[in-house]
């Protein structure tokens, strides 16, 4: 019996995870000791995120593999870490006013978001199935709780339970898939798996294939791709708005990072067996997401479906596999972060105590009663639809580029047609904002911190649309 070999420990490459964990615990502790005014927690959380972002550059000689090849600091992981920090920071900022309004206990809330972020960073940086599993679970567990954090609200609880049950169910499949993969290749390291596959030292092929499909299911669930998306609309609708925004961006990005890594790093050799499957998933994801959104009257639900369709576009990047595709993926996620948080920012801002104003008809006349807010929402929606010269367009352009470069013309054409469909429901919101008479005077209280999120969203969306150059060169290794 061999002794378990001592892992090589490289805490420096783990720095972001460590820093953020420390700050998270700090937040938890502080919550106990400071008084009623919890605004200090926000400050600490944001500082923590900032420190995390900075510390992710502790190693710059990418790629750095550590912990026996379980953990990596590379271009993608660093970029994703930045996205996570950004999205978590935006989520926290977005929650400040919301939590005050909805009387949510903030101590747990912030620390859960931060813990979730830790999970996301692990997820994006892991190159080992076990680590990936852990990352996913850290993220998921935090999200289950966050979804249900409005404890007095039936919808919130229902969303949490649905998410939890389905999430656990999907975890079972994911785990089974990982097990089969491990069983067939004899290792949990992505590099090892790739090696085993390319050298043909795998067990039975059916088991391997089944493992791959199970992984598709597992990751598909996390990124909300059809047919594993069913939780998303309900949970997005039921969860508190800032949490919804957060779920749509951060955890999804993390899941995509892992999805991308597992499929392109571990299983390029199996590409023929999953390419078609993923293509089909991508196409139906786009269609179901966009078609589903058309009928919606609740803005959060509409954005949920929209988020599903965006998962479809992003899957194209995984199918394209190339390094261009990975850059497209991160760029898209970044752009998506800005516009989604912006849009949810507007949604949050429109809510009032006891009345969340989530129906589309509540948006009637917004464009003229609050011109800037209307303009902001218009920009976010059009960017989500992919209209130039906004971030969403450049992002889509990037993804399509990556796919066309690899010759996936049909996929791109279908994606493009979907974009056209998606305009329909994004425009529908604009129709309400500008073309319908308001049903009553809108009472909008412009809470400054939420406004800040919207402004950041606008700046990001426009900047990435007009001058994506600097970010592009960052995204491309």
């Amino acid at each position, binding site marked *: 019996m061999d002794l378990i070999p001592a892992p090589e420990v490289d805490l420096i490459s783990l720095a972001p995870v460590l820093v953020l964990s420390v700050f998270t615990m700090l937040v938890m502790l502080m919550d106990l000791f400071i008084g009623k005014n919890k605004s200090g927690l926000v400050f600490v959380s944001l500082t923590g995120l900032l420190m995390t972002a900075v510390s992710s550059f502790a190693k710059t000689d990418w790629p750095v593999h550590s912990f026996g090849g379980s953990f990596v600091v590379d271009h993608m992981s660093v970029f994703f870490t930045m996205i996570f920090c950004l999205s978590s920071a935006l989520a926290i900022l977005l929650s400040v006013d919301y939590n005050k309004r909805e009387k949510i206990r903030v101590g747990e809330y912030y620390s859960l978001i931060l813990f979730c972020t830790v999970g996301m960073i692990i997820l994006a940086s892991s190159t080992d199935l076990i680590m990936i599993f852990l990352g996913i679970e850290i993220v998921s567990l935090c999200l289950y709780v966050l979804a249900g954090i409005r404890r007095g609200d039936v919808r919130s609880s229902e969303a949490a339970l649905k998410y939890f049950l389905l999430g656990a169910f999907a975890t079972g499949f994911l785990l089974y898939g990982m097990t089969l993969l491990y069983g067939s290749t004899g290792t949990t390291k992505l590099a090892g798996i790739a090696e085993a596959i390319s050298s043909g030292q795998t067990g039975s092929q059916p088991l391997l294939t089944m493992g791959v499909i199970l992984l598709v299911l597992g990751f598909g669930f996390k990124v909300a791709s059809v047919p594993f998306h069913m939780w998303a609309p309900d949970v997005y609708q039921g969860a508190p708005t800032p949490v919804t925004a957060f779920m749509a961006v951060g955890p999804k990005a993390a899941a995509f990072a892992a999805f991308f890594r597992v499929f392109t790093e571990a299983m390029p050799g199996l590409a023929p067996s999953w390419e078609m499957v993923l293509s089909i998933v991508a196409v139906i994801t786009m269609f179901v997401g966009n078609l589903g959104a058309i009928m919606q009257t609740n803005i959060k639900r509409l954005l949920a479906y929209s988020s599903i369709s965006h998962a479809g576009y992003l899957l194209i990047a995984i199918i394209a596999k190339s390094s261009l595709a990975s850059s497209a993926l991160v760029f898209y996620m970044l752009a998506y972060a800005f516009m989604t948080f912006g849009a949810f920012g507007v949604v949050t801002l429109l809510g009032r105590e006891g009345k969340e104003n989530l129906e589309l008809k509540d948006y009637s006349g917004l464009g003229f009663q609050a011109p800037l807010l209307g303009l902001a929402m218009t920009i976010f929606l059009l960017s989500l639809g992919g209209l130039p010269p906004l971030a969403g367009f450049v992002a889509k352009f990037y993804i399509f*580029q990556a796919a066309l470069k690899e010759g996936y013309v049909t996929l791109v054409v279908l994606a493009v047609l979907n974009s056209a469909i998606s305009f329909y429901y994004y425009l529908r919101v604009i129709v309400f904002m500008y073309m319908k008479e308001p049903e009553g005077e809108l009472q909008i209280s412009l809470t400054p911190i939420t406004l800040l999120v919207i402004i950041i969203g606008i700046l990001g969306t426009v900047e990435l649309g007009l001058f994506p150059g600097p970010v592009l060169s960052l995204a491309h290794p």
Partner: protein
Amino acid sequence: MFLTFLTFLPLVGAIALAFIPKEEEGAIKQTALAVAIADFLLSLQLYADFDTTTAAMQFTMDIPWITDWGISYHVGLDGISLLLYIMTTMLTAIAILASFGVKKHVKEYMMAMLALSTGMLGVFISLDFFLFYVFWEFQLIPMYLIIGVWGGPRRIYAAVKFFIYTAVGSLLMLVAIIWMYFHFHETVGVFTTDIMLITQQINLDMIEQKWLFCAFFLAFAIKVPMFPFHTWLPDAHVEAPTAGSVILAGVLLKMGTYGFLRFNLPLFPLASVEFLPYVCGLAVIGIVYGALVAMMQEDLKKLVAYSSVSHLGFVMLGIFAFNHYGLQGALLQNINHGITSGALFLLVGMIYDRRHTRLIKDFGGLAKVIPVFTVCFMIMTLSSVGLPGTNGFIGEFLILLGIFQNQMGFAIVATSGVIFAACYMLWMFQRVMFLEIKHPENEKLTDMTPRELCTMIPLIIFVFWIGFYPKPFTKTFDASIEHLITQVEPKKTHESPGGHHAAVATPVKMAKAEAGLHETH
């Protein structure tokens, strides 16, 4: 730099308007008008400085934009785009002047108009695919809002239809653009989206050309609109406010034909020749079909909208004549249609403002009540009919002359369009302006106000100017058309050895030579 300044001036104006308080509607209107007029007057400088002897791009500006992808901010004008550009600035000014009567949300309206102007101008100057696409899509939004917010009862339906229809086409074009981008990299080794560069150097085989042609065709055919992609147009026109219709007919439709000239012909000459019969067929169907359907319309705006389908059919036919006459006619007809249809929509808008109806049966006998209006309307009607001496004739004549040299069958059917044009326009005119007054409301109509007259007079001047002395306009086209023909021609004759272009020139010379002989005998 000057071109960039001109293009973005309206946008800057729009932003400036944002700082004027909502209540000061007068100031808002005046500022908007001042910006638009300034833009127009300054754009005349372009005409003055334009060198008509070269087909090269002028007033160019090329600065890197997204260097990672080889995208640059490259703009310029040539003979194909110059007049469209100036017409756009002019129609914007006129449209703004014409919409002083707008009732609600004046500020937003004016901002949308100015932003729209920048979008349209950008389309005509872009020399980079990416940039082109950005402007191409960007102008949809203000137009969408103008139709959707300030439009008629079915405005939302019309606006969404307009937006989605156009977007479907242009998104496929986007795919084609990206595909070409990589293809260009594979074959030439450069990542670039520069239109000029790609046009010059790209090497596509027949199959590739066909696919790409189709993608571009769809985008532009929807915009033109060619039969059977035209149904968004009547809806959009009917619902849009007056100025919206003016811009829509005057400029937006021209972006489609411009696209054919800028992209389809030079980029895909083989496919253009291959698809020629189909495109011409659709154009001819559009001419006759648009005219026949226009004849039955009960709504004035719809009538003019369908007449646009017919007129734009002529333009498409001219473009696909592939010879100097046809192309020149097409380019001129672009301008003509902008002027004439724009004016017709303005006129319809004027009586709509007075009577709040556009149904032909609600009018009749107006000639007696509002004579000045009648004269203007008559002039524009005749211009639309293509009466010699007005602008419409020159364009149509050249187009038909051009297509007759190559495609006699299409030419004959298309020429019959002149008969139908007379039918629907004059019949409409009679029912609206002549006969006895049936509705007492019509007896008290007021004639055109000075402001309305101001919107019409420039257009009337152009109707006759182009009709009698088109040279200042056509001379800007010549070099670019020659260049365009050389881009299409060698590949075309290679494809079809019995190319018609040469066949036209020979009898001319022979006839002249022999005539000379004859004289000396």
